[in-house]
């Protein structure tokens, strides 16, 4: 199984991004009764994503972009593409009703690393309750530490066969145990055993370049270019 390339942090500087589920819809046109029936045959759709105007802040970032473009082999090698949903993540609230967001964690003496960075730790802790089967669209999630789910959030799950996958929440119902029973789309790409971690913060989806020139750019020497990249979901065969 081909190991995906992780989209590096220095390239997570896009000005905007777009994610959508793409599928097939067909219709026979108008019927004698005046209706226009449509049928979908895509089984739930496939993710397509675009990262727009990725800011390359220095030459190292430009070198990184070129290296990723070469390593992806025009779309043959999959890539872990990050999905930002900064304003929608269900962070817990503090006493002042403000979200507790991730911060750079210093050493025990309060100092940071030489580049100013500290340690990173996820804030939201969530996991599945009970086993879920391939193509299920319902999950029970226990939020050990996090804010309430309301619908419209996205989450990611990692499985050994299909790696990282992203799902969008449609509805949320709180059960008698206080867990969140969510419906989502697209259907699960793999069997998910109970206790699997559900990530609401650092979302990744296993994708590949949409086409061979999806990371191409016009060379600009000053300022550095702000290229785009487009991806389509990559599915491992059974």
């Amino acid at each position, binding site marked *: 199984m081909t190991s995906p390339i992780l989209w590096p942090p220095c390239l997570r500087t896009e000005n905007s991004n777009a994610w959508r589920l793409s599928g*097939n819809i067909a219709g026979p046109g108008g019927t004698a009764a005046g209706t226009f029936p449509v*049928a979908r045959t895509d089984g*739930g759709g496939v993710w397509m994503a675009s990262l727009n105007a990725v800011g390359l802040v220095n030459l190292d970032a430009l070198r990184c972009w070129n290296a990723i473009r070469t390593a992806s082999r025009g779309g043959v090698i999959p890539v872990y593409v990050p999905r930002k949903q900064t304003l929608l993540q269900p962070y817990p609230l503090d006493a002042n009703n403000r979200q507790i967001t991730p911060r750079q964690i210093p050493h025990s003496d309060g100092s940071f690393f030489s580049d100013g960075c500290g340690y990173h730790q996820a804030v939201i802790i969530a996991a599945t309750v009970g086993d879920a089967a391939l*193509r299920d*669209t319902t999950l029970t999630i226990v939020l050990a530490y996090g804010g309430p789910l309301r619908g419209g959030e996205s989450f990611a799950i990692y499985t050994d066969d299909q790696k990282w996958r992203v799902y969008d929440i449609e509805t949320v119902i709180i059960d008698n145990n206080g867990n969140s029973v969510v419906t989502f789309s697209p259907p699960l790409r793999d069997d998910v055993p109970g206790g699997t971690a559900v990530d609401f913060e650092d979302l990744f989806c296993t994708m590949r370049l949409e086409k*061979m020139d999806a990371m191409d750019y016009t060379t600009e020497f000053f300022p550095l270019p702000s290229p785009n990249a487009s991806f389509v979901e990559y599915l491992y065969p*059974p």
Partner: protein
Amino acid sequence: MDFTGGELAILEGNAYNIGIFFQLQLSTVQRLWLGIGKIKPGINAYDPLGTEVYSGFGELVDVPAFQQLINGTAERIEFVCNGVSSKIISVAAGDAGTVRCKPVLIGIGIMDTDWRLVAPVKWCWRGVADFLTFDIVPPSDPSGATLRTLKLSVGSLLTGRRRRGLSYYTDQDQETKYPGDTFCSRAVEYNQLIQKVFPRFALLLGIMSSIAADWIGQSIC
């Protein structure tokens, strides 16, 4: 093909989800569907275990239109898969003969709004695979990509009536249809193109008359 009440209720609506399933019954059955990712459709007429897995998206791009006819022209359809890799082309070239005379099935499954099958898959068309071909179209300009296409030609039951396929009783044909069957192994021993000449009865009658006359003459004498 009977639809359940749940399926009929879905089909009576204006929007519905359909799963289209494809089987090529090689020694290892190839199961594909038009949806995204994997699916286990459960027990049906051709999946007795219920754990069979169908692969989707990119494996089978489209299913050609077909029809179920009575007293119509026997149908041949072609499945096309575009954008395959060069590795698949090389494998297909080497194994093209293995698909011949293998059953091909097309089925549909009605799904609800959560993409769950409402009832077992209904297999509505059965054909016989004939041959596998592939095309390689080079790019028209340097920035383009090479397009590789794989095509599987499948005929219905009576497609070969006029264009005879495996209708010769040679050992190779019999082994292809039924591996290990040596019924036709001695077919090569039979000569072909022998004209069997029937006797000329007028000449034979004359000879017999002559013999009879001689015998009668000798008897009288």
